[in-house]
């Protein structure tokens, strides 16, 4: 069948929340470790800023949220790279988490499909 949907399984979503403007560093780290792409959006974070008292001024409320989809084989390396690049071991730097993805679908180049599943895409 011509338009058979190819589901990709074994995918993980890594989300990293950092101070606005530092998202680019996170994306770069993720890409050098094999992430295909990233999605960034802007958000406001609430929580530690209020509980830190006056020190809270050092925590920006404006955040970049970086979403990266990776194959599960890569999730730990990418996650670690992101953790290091965003310096998440510092207070107030942000957080990152991994969400398992049940399945995803997107365009996969035919050349790659044929290489993986044999000619004709039959598996």
């Amino acid at each position, binding site marked *: 069948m011509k338009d058979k949907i190819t589901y990709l399984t074994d995918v993980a979503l890594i989300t990293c929340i950092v101070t606005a403007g530092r998202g680019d560093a996170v994306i770069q780290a993720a890409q050098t470790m094999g992430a295909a792409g990233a999605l960034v959006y802007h958000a406001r974070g609430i929580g530690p800023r209020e*509980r*830190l*008292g006056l*020190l809270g*001024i*050092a925590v920006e409320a404006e955040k970049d949220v970086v979403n990266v989809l990776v194959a599960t*084989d890569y999730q730990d390396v990418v996650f670690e790279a992101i953790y290091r690049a965003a310096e998440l071991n510092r*207070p107030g730097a942000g957080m990152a988490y991994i969400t398992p993805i049940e399945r995803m679908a997107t365009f996969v180049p035919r050349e790659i499909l044929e290489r993986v599943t044999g000619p004709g895409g039959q598996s």
Partner: protein
Amino acid sequence: MKDSVRYGDYLRAIGAGRRELSANAILPPARRDVNGRPLPPPAPPPIRLHPDEIAGLLRPYVSVRFMDQFRAVVPLALYLALFQILILRQLVDDSWLITAGLFAVILGLMFFMEGLKLGLMPFGELIGHTLPRKSSLPLVLLITLLLGIGVTFAEPAIGALQAAGRNVSPELAPYLWLLLNEWTGALVLVIGASVGLAAVLGTLRFLHGWSLKPLIYASLVPVLGLTLYGAGDPELAKVMGLAWDAGAVTTGPVTVPLVLSLGIGIAAAAGRGDSGLSGFGIVTLASLFPIIGVLLLAFYVAGTVTPTEILAIAAMAGTDMGALAWYERSPGVELILGLRAILPLVLFLFIILKFVLKEELPRPREIWLGIALTLIGMCLFNLGLTYGLSALGASAGSLVPAAFMAVPDAEGSPLYLYGVGLTLALVFAWVLGFGATIAEPALNALGVTAEQLTNGFFKKRTLILAVSVGVACGIALGVTKLIFDLPLVWLIVPPYLLATLLTLVSSEEFVNVAWDSAGVTTGPITVPLVLAMGLGFGNATQAVEGFGILCLASIGPIISVLLTGLWARLRAGLQERTDRRDPSTQPALDVQSPL
């Protein structure tokens, strides 16, 4: 036994430096009441950090802000110092003191900007949002006027203007000396009132959606008229530079955001917030009105005091110099100036909040910390201004003329042939203007706005480049004025007439961006540096006064941006015309291509 291991599992298995911890373990256990229903957990206690964790929290916060100011100050300072050492072959006097001063400027600006963001800005925004809903329009406009005066006192660059007055000689320019030394209070008040008036008019413009063009024409007529009138009097002509520079000085990092936040708040309350152009215009008017104000003040002074009386006052002031109280001497006076700049503004905002709006401060501790930071920053900045920026600018200004003429302080001057030296001095001024402008953070913000406003038609880079070239040409022209002692009127009036003409044929968006770019370029680093350099230059070349460079630096970008806008529109028009002529061939291609 498995014969293959997934790479991911392998990585997870060998991963060192990881450990897993249940999130439940770091939170208090969930409680339930007798019926088994969950109870809300107690309010989380404040987070306590160890000193090293606090250091980790503050390090990036401080370093980002420090580097922002560092990048703005150091290249310029290095350029000035290297030019002196390499081209003029003179050592920078008191280099350690100047370095310490520049460091104080960087720290001061860092504290000041952060304090502004944490303290004064939320204050201003709160008032801007709530005031129009709770009070009548006349009261709102009155408060806007008073706020305009308050922010002018708080503007760091105004201090530079006052500092510059110490170098003016009472014999050569009596009125200028009087205004800058004995009448400083009145001078700043007049400038402040003009800014306030501009804010009121700008707010009315928001509310009624007036076009900026007629406002520009209407304010240019008295500006140019008074200038031409004053130019007829040889004594008054010397005040002209100050008056025009005052306009450029006012629109700095305190005035622009505070007045804008109030104006936008008022416009939003009236339901006219988002025209895209609403933010513009106030800056333009705030840089034109002070010229009128200062000129009128100068005329008033000239009408009441004669030059001989001024000389008597100056002689008396000279004898007093011996015994100055601590608060009138160098380290003390800067601190007092800093306090005097910020405290009245804070008090004014606080009184409005408490008694007119009857509101409480949100996050009061943060806002008070911000105000304290603003105070510390202002005092540090003032100190650094005296010992760092002004000293560096003055020394560069007094030494650059050594390139082409004999200057007593510089050995072996003139260093170069007259023509070569003159070219060097002008190139120096041009590059200084270009470098100072292209690094100005406010310009970047304007560029982004302009790009959005014109739907990407006017690129950010184009705008920054156009403004920088305009400022550079303006500063070079200003230096030419000082070298040849040209009357400022003939340098100022024709460009403004040209700008008026260009305004007439340009579209509303470009007019807004262009006139505002003039005010935006003159920030807290450029102003003192250029002012001090101009005065030093003026002293070395025996010009009567060293003002006027700044105002030429603000007309430059107006013209260059308007011209760029016209050129871009012309090019777009030509493109459209060729596109319209082309269609005869276009369909033919479409038919052929599938074949």
